[in-house]
C-alpha cells in the first residue's frame, strides 16, 4: 500500500490561506472594479477550489489517473459552458436585413 500521509502543518496552512481569501473576496465585493469584479471573485474561487483539491483531497500526492479524472471533469464542464455560450454570445450578430 502506497499512501502518502500529508503532514498536519500543511492542512493548517491551507486552512489559513482559505480563510484569508474568503475575507479578501468579501471585502473586494464592496469595491467598484467594473467588469473586473466578477473576474476577481471567480479567480479567488478557482484558487480556493484548487487548494482544496490539491491538498485537502490529496490530489497533489495521487496517481496520474486521479489527476486526469479531476482535470477531465472540469474540462467537460468547460465544454458544456463554452459551446453553449458560443450560441448565446453570437446570437446578436445575426441581423435580419
Amino acid at each position, binding site marked *: 500500500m502506497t499512501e502518502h500521509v500529508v503532514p498536519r502543518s500543511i492542512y493548517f496552512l491551507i486552512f489559513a490561506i482559505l480563510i484569508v481569501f474568503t475575507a479578501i473576496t468579501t471585502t473586494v465585493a464592496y469595491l467598484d472594479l467594473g467588469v473586473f469584479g466578477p473576474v476577481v471573485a471567480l479567480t479567488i474561487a478557482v484558487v480556493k477550489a484548487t487548494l482544496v483539491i490539491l491538498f485537502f483531497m490529496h490530489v497533489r500526492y495521487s496517481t496520474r489517473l486521479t489527476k486526469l479524472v479531476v482535470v477531465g471533469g472540469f474540462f467537460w464542464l468547460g*465544454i*458544456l459552458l463554452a*459551446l453553449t455560450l*458560443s450560441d448565446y454570445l*453570437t446570437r446578436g450578430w445575426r441581423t435580419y436585413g
Partner: protein
Amino acid sequence: MKDYLNATYGLKSWLLTRDHKRIALLYLASVTLFFFVGGAFAVMVRLELATPPADLMQPETYNKMFTMHGVAMVFFFLIPAIPAVLGNWLIPVMIGARDLAFPKLNLASWYIFMLGGLFTLWAMVTGGVDTGWTFYTPYSSAFSNTHVVTAALGIFIAGFASILTGLNFIVTIHRMRAPGMTWFRLPLFVWSHYATSLIMVLGTPVIAITILLVAAERAFGLGLFDPARGGDPVLFQHLFWFYSHPAVYIMVLPAMGVVSELVAAFSRKPVFGYAFVAFASLAIAVIGFLVWGHHMFVSSQSVYAAMIFSVLSFLVAVPSAVKVFNWTATLYRGSISYDTPMLYAFGFIGLFTIGGLTGLFLATLGIDVHVTDTYFIVAHFHYIMFGGTIMGYLGGLHYWWPKMTGRLYPEGWAKLGALTIFLGFNLTFFPQFVLGYLGMPRRYAAYPEEFQVLNVMSSAGATILGAGYLIPMIYFIWSLRYGRIAGPNPWGAVGLEWTTPSPPPTDNFEKTPIVTQPAYAYHLLERA
C-alpha cells in the same frame, strides 16, 4: 463446483445476488419487458398512421403513444440494453476478474432502474405523457396537462442506474484486469464499453439536473425555461441535447463492440486495425460531446453556433467510417461462417452505414433545414438505433447465449428470425426517408392523403417486424429447457470468456487467468 445459475436457489437468491452475471440476467428480463412495452406503443402508432385522418384514436392519445414509445425505447430499453445486460455479464469475464469492482452498487443500479421504470410505467397507466421524448419547454413545463412530473422523475431515477453502471465499468476496467491483460490486449468489446461508460458518467448528470428543473418548473412555478417568466426555452434544448446527443453513442458504441467480437469470431482472425478501432471508440465518445447543437439548427440558435456544431458533427462521422471500413477489411481472407450472430453483424454493418450516411444529410445545414422534424429524421434514427444497435444486441445475445445459459438455440429458426426482422425493418423504415423529403412532419396524428401509400408500406413492414421479434423470443425461452448442451466453446472462438465452463461458476474462474496473448489470437491457434 456449481455454475452461477445453480449455485443457489430461490427468488431471494436472485433478488439479493451480487453476482454480475445474475444481475445481467435481471436486467435482461427488465429491458425485454420495456422493449415489448415500447413495441406495443409502436404498433399503435403504425396502426393509426395506416390511414390519413386521426380515426383510430384521438390526437391526444396518439401524442401519448409516440411519446411513451420513445421514452420506453430510449431510456428503458436501448440505453441499458447492451451495457447492463451483455456488458455487465461479460466485462469481468473478459478481463479475467471475479466480479465488477462494486457488486453492491451493481445490484443497487438494477433496483434504481426498476424504481425509475415503475415511476414511468405508473405515469403511463395513469394517463400517460404527451410531450415527445424530448420534453421541449415551455410545452412540457407550462402547457401540457399530462403526467410529465411522474414520467420525468422516472427518467431522472433511471439515470442514476446508468451512472452507476458506467462508474462500475470504468473502475473495473482500470483496476480489476487480470495479470497480463494490458490495455491493448483488451477485447474491443471492453474498449467500446469503456468509451460508453465515459459518456454515461459525463453526460447523464446534466440530463438529471435538466429534468429536475423541468419538474421544479411545473411544481413550483420557477421560470428557467419559460419565456413568459423571463426564461429561455432554447437553454433547455442545449441542456437536453448535451446529454441526449452523446446518449445516441451510449446506444451505438456497445453494439459496435459486439460487432467487433462477432466479426473476429466468425471470420476467425483478428479485427483489422485493432488500435484504430479501439481509439475510434474513444474518439466518438469525446467528439460526440461537441456536436449537440445539430439538433437545433432551426431552433433560433445563432447561425454561427450552428456552423460550429455542423462541422463538428461531420468530424464525429469519421471514426465511425473508420470502424465500418475496418470491419469490412476484417472479412478479407477470413474464414467466414454464416452462423446467426454473423448474419446480425452483417445486418448491423449495412444498416448502420445507411443510418450513419443519412446522419450526414442531417449534419449538412442546408439539408437539415428542410428535413428536420420530418420523417427523414425518424427514418435516420430507426436505421441507426434499430438497424444498428438492435441488430448488434441480437447478434450478441445469440453469440453469448450458449455461454450465459449453457444451451444452444435452434439455428434454423434463428436464421428465419434474422431474415424476417431484416426484411420487415427495411420495409418499415425505408419509405420514411422518402416521406421525410416530401415533407411529412413527424409527430402527426393525421397527415395529408398523398402520403398514404408510403405510410401503408411502413405499417405493413411493422407488422412483419413485430412477428419477426416473436420468433427469437419464443426459441430463446424454448432453448432454456430443450436446447442442445453447448459446451464451453461452441463457436471455436478465442477470448477469456470461452475458457470458462458454460455457464461459468459464480466467481467466473477457478484460478485468476494469466494473459499472455493479444485479443483475437486466432493465428496462434493455428500454430499450436
